[in-house]
């Protein structure tokens, strides 16, 4: 079957043509009086037509637009032309393209060029690679890149766009493993259109990050305690001057890891740099050609952070910390505000925040991806083991391009993963485990029940409203460990299933799942007042509801200790299956109080 989304668009073209000549521009309709007179009829229709009575229908059209979907920061653009608004990020299918002509390697540079994907460098077994290849999206063919003047070091190359289709590529060179051994970054430019490299002077320090500033025809190279501007036209490095103040977390390992260096972005008018700090206080500094470096404010987290990333979002600079806090800095006013933190689900690697072309904001950090909803983050499991570059995918859809090793480390594959995928993780209710679903979107509604045996921090609920598939991929992590497994699901229907999800070296644990094939169901909340919490939780769970516990202190010796005192919503209230029910549990006061 041809792409269903495309069929819908084509069919909609036909339907739109069949609508006929609706009046263009405003006019007073002949039936306006009838419309208001019919308001009562609308209410009746909504009441008796259950199929038509959508949960959000505004029978009262005079009310203000709903505020529930009005975000504090709305990155979604107000589209004025439907043809220019890309469909949400779900049209690009996952694709494993293959290794191409390159030998096995890891940590290669992967960038999305105008015509395809460039893969260069990397290392294998401690040996740096200096070859590369370009994958052409139109032809589906690989072509080897010209020989590069960059050295064969093991560090992962960095790149920033220059000119129309060029890249400034740098690679760290170290003279020894000890702290203090000199290091610098070799640099070269590569023109993707002509497949030509041009040598440029080495950067005078170890570059941790590159930030393109096309308005200045420059690239800023970020180091440990300085920022140097590379003038593209003159092919020269020029210091921007020292920062006002930095406090860096000491590290023992060289080469420089971008995760421990400041986050720097170019807003179009100024550089904004946020440095890591030991005491959780981050200076926020801006640089302009006229004013140089100026300290504009601070971000307070109280936590030492070793990894930061920043992105320009609607004129603000959003900064993601290693602890998943998110702050927004306004370069115009100097104000800093804190946004909702990302779920604790993310624990591995460094965060990467990106503002996509369609206005959405995405944070990628294995094993998950989060999308800003306007007042919080929605989580998606990430299915690639090594983050690549977030860039347009096929047909311009945002995607992650990754040139990754397989599990055996024997082969590479260039893959593109649409970012993110809907419905793969409808809701993570409790806990650190994420469940990814198989490639088939026909996936069943699942409730992951508490395990039969203890395995550390568990008690995860996950509800995914889809039809059941025959394969369930499980990704998870607990503490610092992570793993994945493919789980066979051999039966469908309203029954409990057993599956195992574990990783090598640890006994697999067994969980129970119950499939529920009534995604439109409404449950009449049972009364759980007077039950112990575990009984209440089980009762509500059997209804497809989720118990959320709150504690209330009761006098010492009160018989309500440990029992549910209140519940919200109250018993017999009809709520959609999957809703949360708050249960207030009595907690004993300190006998000495």
């Amino acid at each position: 079957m041809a792409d269903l989304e495309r069929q819908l668009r084509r069919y909609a073209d036909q339907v739109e043509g069949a609508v006929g000549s609706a009046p263009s521009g405003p006019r007073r309709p002949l039936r306006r009086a009838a419309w208001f007179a019919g308001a009562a009829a609308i209410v009746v229709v909504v009441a008796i037509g259950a199929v038509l009575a959508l949960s959000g229908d505004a029978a009262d059209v005079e009310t203000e637009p709903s505020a529930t979907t009005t975000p504090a920061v709305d990155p979604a653009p107000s589209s004025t032309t439907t043809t220019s608004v890309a469909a949400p990020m779900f049209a690009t299918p996952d694709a494993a393209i293959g290794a191409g002509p390159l030998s096995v390697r890891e940590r290669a540079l992967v960038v999305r060029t105008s015509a395809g994907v460039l893969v260069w460098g990397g290392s294998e077994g401690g040996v740096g690679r200096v070859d590369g290849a370009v994958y052409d999206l139109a032809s589906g063919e690989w072509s080897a890149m010209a020989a590069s003047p960059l050295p064969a070091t093991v560090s992962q190359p960095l790149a920033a766009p220059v000119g129309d289709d060029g890249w400034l590529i740098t690679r760290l060179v170290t003279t020894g493993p000890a702290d203090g051994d000199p290091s610098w970054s070799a640099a070269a430019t590569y023109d993707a259109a002509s497949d030509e490299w041009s040598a440029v002077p080495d950067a005078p320090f170890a570059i941790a990050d590159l930030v393109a500033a096309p308005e200045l025809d420059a690239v800023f190279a970020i180091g440990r305690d300085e920022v140097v501007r590379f003038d593209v036209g003159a092919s020269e490095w020029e210091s921007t001057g020292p920062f006002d103040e930095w406090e860096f977390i000491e590290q023992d390992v060289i080469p420089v890891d971008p995760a421990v260096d400041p986050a720097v972005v170019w807003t179009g008018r100024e550089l904004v740099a946020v440095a890591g700090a030991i005491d959780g206080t981050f200076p926020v500094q801006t640089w302009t050609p006229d004013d140089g470096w100026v300290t504009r404010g601070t971000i307070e987290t109280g936590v030492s952070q070793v990894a930061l990333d920043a992105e320009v979002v609607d004129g603000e600079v959003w900064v993601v910390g290693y602890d998943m806090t998110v702050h927004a800095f306004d370069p115009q006013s100097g104000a800093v505000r804190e946004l909702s933190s990302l779920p604790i689900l993310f624990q591995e690697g460094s965060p990467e925040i990106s503002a996509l072309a369609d206005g959405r904001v995405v944070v990628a950090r294995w094993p998950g991806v989060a999308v800003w909803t306007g007042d919080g983050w929605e989580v998606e499991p990430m299915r690639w083991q090594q983050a690549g570059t977030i860039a347009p995918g096929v047909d311009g859809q945002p995607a992650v391009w990754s040139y990754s090793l397989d599990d055996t480390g024997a082969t590479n594959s260039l893959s593109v993963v649409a970012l993110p995928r809907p419905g793969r993780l409808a809701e993570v209710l409790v806990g650190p485990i994420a469940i990814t679903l198989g490639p088939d979107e026909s996936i069943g509604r699942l409730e992951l029940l508490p395990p039969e045996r203890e395995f550390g921090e568990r008690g995860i609920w996950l509800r995914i409203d889809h039809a059941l598939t025959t394969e369930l991929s499980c990704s998870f992590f607990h503490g610092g460990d992570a793993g994945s497994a493919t789980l066979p699901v051999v039966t469908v229907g309203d029954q409990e299933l057993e599956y195992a999800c574990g990783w090598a070296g640890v006994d697999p644990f067994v969980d129970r799942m119950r499939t529920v094939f009534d995604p439109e169901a409404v449950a009449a909340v049972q009364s759980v007042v007077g039950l112990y919490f575990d009984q209440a939780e089980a009762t509500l769970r059997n209804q497809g509801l989720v118990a959320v516990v709150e504690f209330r202190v009761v006098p010492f010796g009160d018989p309500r200790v440990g029992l549910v005192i209140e519940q919200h919503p109250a018993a017999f209230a009809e709520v959609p299956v999957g809703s949360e029910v708050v249960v207030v549990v009595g907690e004993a006061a300190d006998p000495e109080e």
Partner: protein
Amino acid sequence: MTDGQAIHVLLEEADRRLRRALPAAVGVEATPDAVAEALAWAWEHRERVATFANPHGYLYRMAVNAGRRRRREPDLPPVDTVRLPEVEPGLPAALASLSPMQRQVVWLVHACDWTYGETAEALDITASAVGTHLTRGMTRLRTSIIGDEDHG
């Protein structure tokens, strides 16, 4: 651009978007009048409409309400298989088999290229719910058109 010109541009854009978006909710026959009523209201309240962050979503809801007074089920035309050989002939029936919410979400997002935010505003649901309804709807569409044996 003056305020008067701006509202005209807005309403012309709304006219075009609603004529494409509404048929899945109210049917082809009811769409023109429903759009007219919504635009007329928008014109009479143009100062207020000009302040909306997402006027198209609001006008969509208004037009749907207006259109449903005329018809209970959307009448989607059969596929013109001569002009659109790549479109499954069973698509209109498959769309009709969806719940109204799923059908509208699928139509707005995939047929009309509305963003999740715009769709959520139009249907007065959360963006998360848009994703849920979209996936359910697309799954049911595929199942309805090609059957279980060809799934995936």
